[in-house]
């Protein structure tokens, strides 16, 4: 399982800069991925798009992605986008790891 953190203000310019590395550290490894979102202060739709693309890429190799501890405001944006309907969002790390352990 891969665990990594996203931090700070994830606006469009930031996502365009980090997306290649994020994909290398998630989709390319073909292992379950837990993304710690607790230090994210702002998230643009391009960030949601990056996470969806990563989740799709992982699913095609039989793995999954989950998010851990987004702030209430970030989680509100995620839910407004429908992201929570297709990717797990957890506030307890043990539960998140258990959900990914089978993938």
């Amino acid at each position, binding site marked *: 399982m891969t665990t990594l953190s996203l931090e700070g203000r994830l606006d*469009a*310019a930031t996502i365009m800069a980090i997306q290649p590395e994020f994909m290398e550290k998630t989709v390319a490894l073909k292992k379950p991925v837990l993304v710690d979102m607790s230090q994210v202060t702002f998230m*643009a*739709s391009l960030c*949601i798009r990056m996470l969806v693309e990563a989740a799709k890429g992982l699913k095609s190799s039989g793995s999954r992605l989950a998010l851990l501890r987004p702030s209430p405001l970030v989680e*509100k*944006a995620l839910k*407004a986008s*429908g992201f929570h309907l*297709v990717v797990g969002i957890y506030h307890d790390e043990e539960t998140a790891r258990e959900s990914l352990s089978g993938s």
Partner: protein
Amino acid sequence: MAKPDREASQPEAEPRLCFEIEAALKELSPASARVRSFLSERGVDRAAIFAIETVIEEIVTNAIKYAFRSPGKGQIIIEAFATDSRAELILEDNGDAFNPTEAPDPQVNRSLEDMPIGGLGIHLVRELTDGFDYQRINDRNRVQVWVHRES
């Protein structure tokens, strides 16, 4: 060339922050910081400010993508103010006509395979704000949004 900034009280009007930026992604973070600081100083709650920042991010990104054929040549005027009940934002640009309120809403309640990767920005604006208007005035796009304040 940016116009002089102004942040001044007018008789019987709330203080407004008004400034101009180039239509470029690098302008977004400092522009959002200015609006965040201005609204925060007026006691606007974090949820309303988060929504206003989302609007700046998504509407300006769309303007760069659709309203300006030559990157970096467009100008966008950002105006923010707060009343007792709500925070408001007006974005005005000199690009080609583009009405974001008419952009189709993506279907977001699908499987992961069918989850849309485009069109989420305007959807977020609709979901996070309480009012979302567009006008084409004097060959300029004018988007106005407002968000009810919790504080």
